[in-house]
């Protein structure tokens, strides 16, 4: 584990089938385990955004990111340490309504974490928490201690960098400008 840190990689790619496979293959080839992976549409039309976390060394993260960026339909890939990003995670805890309501501790725990109850019906209720990874884990442990958790799911990390702009916007604009200039 010497020298290993948790890195967050943010990738922007074209929205084409098969790119996720190409990106994860870069990790597989080096036997790096992906801790979390989130993929969704970005603010730019036709561009998808990937947020990937993994534990690795500074030397290896650099190479991984370059190899990802080398893929034909990947627009940009960058990596960040935790102090260079704002990050959040969403979790849902499905709890048994009778157990949950029968235990006054349960709603206290939910309030303490500023979690929300987003669904209540006679059989189950759903608690939702947006926050840091550690809080999500510890809320799970507390609710489990109260023996009322039926299901639990977490989204994996999503993150934005602390710099002001989404760099990919500038990059795409610059690429098109350079292309038009060279064409002249």
């Amino acid at each position, binding site marked *: 584990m010497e020298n290993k840190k948790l890195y967050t990689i943010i990738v922007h790619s074209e929205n084409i089938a098969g790119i996720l496979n190409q990106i994860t*293959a870069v990790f597989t080839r080096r036997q790096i385990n992906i801790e979390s992976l989130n993929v969704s549409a970005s603010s730019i039309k036709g561009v998808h955004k990937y947020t990937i976390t993994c534990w690795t060394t500074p030397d290896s993260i650099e190479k991984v990111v370059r190899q990802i960026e080398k893929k034909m339909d990947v627009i940009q890939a960058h990596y960040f340490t935790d102090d260079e990003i704002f990050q959040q995670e969403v979790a849902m805890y499905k709890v048994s309504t009778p157990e949950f309501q029968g235990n006054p501790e349960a709603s206290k725990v939910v309030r303490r974490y500023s979690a929300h109850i987003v669904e209540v019906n006679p059989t189950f209720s759903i608690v939702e928490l947006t926050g840091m990874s550690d809080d999500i884990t510890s809320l799970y442990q507390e609710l489990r201690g109260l023996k009322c958790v039926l299901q639990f799911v977490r989204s994996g990390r999503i993150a934005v960098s602390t710099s002001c702009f989404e760099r990919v916007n500038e990059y795409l604009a610059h690429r098109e400008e350079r292309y038009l200039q060279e064409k002249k």
Partner: protein
Amino acid sequence: MSKEKITGSEALMRSLEHEGVKTIFGYPGGAIMPVYDALYDHRDKLNHILVRHEQGAVHAAQGFARVSGEVGVCLVTSGPGATNTITGVADAMIDSTPIVVIAGQVGASLLGTDAFQEVDLVGVTQPISKWSYQIRRAEDVAWAVSRAFYIARSGRPGPVVLDFAKNAQVDLTEFEPMITDFIRSYDPDPETDPKAVAEAVALINEAKRPLVLVGQGVELGGAQQELKAFVEKADIPCGCTLLGLSALHSDHPLNKGMLGMHGNLGPNVKTNECDVLIAVGMRFDDRVTGKLETYAKQAKVIHLDIDPSEISKNVKADVAILGNCKRTLALLTELIQSHKHTEWIESFQSYADKEFQEVIEKEVYPGEGPINMGEVVHAVSEATHNEAILVTDVGQNQMFACRYFKFSKDRSIVTSGGMGTMGFCLPAAIGATFGRPDRTVCAFMGDGGLQMTMQELGTLMEQRCPVKMILMNNNYLGNVRQWQAMFFNRRYSFTPMMNPDYMQIAAAYGIPSRRVTEREALNDGIQEMLQTSGPFLLEVCVVEEGNVLPMTPPGSSVNYMMLNLDC
């Protein structure tokens, strides 16, 4: 007025012609039959070479591309046809060779059903190709083909795989030829940082013992003249990588020879003595660097490469100059001062002398005993006035060929460097004769490698392509045997090999041939080979347990080279 509609297969033909394709290496089969049917009407413009195995098609396309600088094209069917090209696709990837492999695929409605001869070709080739794409609709053909050729040939070249579903081959579409010259997610010639250029110029101007490492990137970028101008102005000695051997001609006074495990003593030893190391279009392969922990630690490293992922991948670059080296070398040449490094350059001579006395003289001029491989290569190179294209297989034949063949023309070396694909030589040489019909193509093989793709003798027979095959037969898988001798206590585990009568095999294919067993007959045999038009097989029975020397043993430092097996 509605436009004419044509089939996807016809669209493929027109797209290929639009890209300037004239030669296709291929093999038909079920899922590519509509394309072959369309090809029948285009056979006057698209010269299709029927190979005997799909691996032969892809290596031929590689050989074609390497000598001509154009994109090699390979056409195969789905399933096994497609998977038979995989070795060549991976080979082209690691050796940056522009090829486009077009494979048939089952119809889109059958995809994912384990249909007959269905294989997930895109999935299989994604990690080993520059781009793989499945064409599922006839209207996508023009776009996909133009994009494929643009990607294959631009930037750092590489293989592109087009997986052509059968429904898209037969469906009708309107057709307008397309040109791709921009992909927003792909920058084939990254911008050069002027600050890095200034730093490099300062380092080069201050350098007392600079060394240039010449890689294939110089030839891929067409930067041979720019390289020459650069090293001449700065007066810097050079070492060439295996694939960069003909980028700076052998007789250039600044060319100090080949780098790497079996390279020349001077450039390898001096790598660990230079103060500035300038790597041009090369990727610091482990066969070049030896032990990385001790590689050129004393030197400032300037790395010129078009591929950002190569920078600091193996050797940390102090200065990275991104971009096509044709442009970046010219930029550096303009900015650097003229220099003389006479003493430093002369210091290579003692190593060249030592290597000559202890290795080369014994190998090339043994005087008596069995014929050496180096001796054969040297004789063929001389007989062709160092002007031929060298194609090699993999192993001892490759190392001897690359050590002793000399180059006086650009794009003259075709060998499987990164992959080390045995069986590469014969089909690649066939491809090379189509890429440069004006040049002599000499193909050096061992008895192991020839037998891996020997079926391509059928292609040779049919096409009469003038491949001068030099089979250096030692009845061993020589390179592995050498390692067994050196590192496995001479336990020759499955390296001795029983050989067929190659004269009879050549005769069966109607290919003229000659076997040479005596030194006195060697030059005569070579002359007969060169004077015979069309293909020729020259089998030279060479010393059985010859060893490639010098050698940097695996895991050793680049400056440690064994000159004989006694040390």
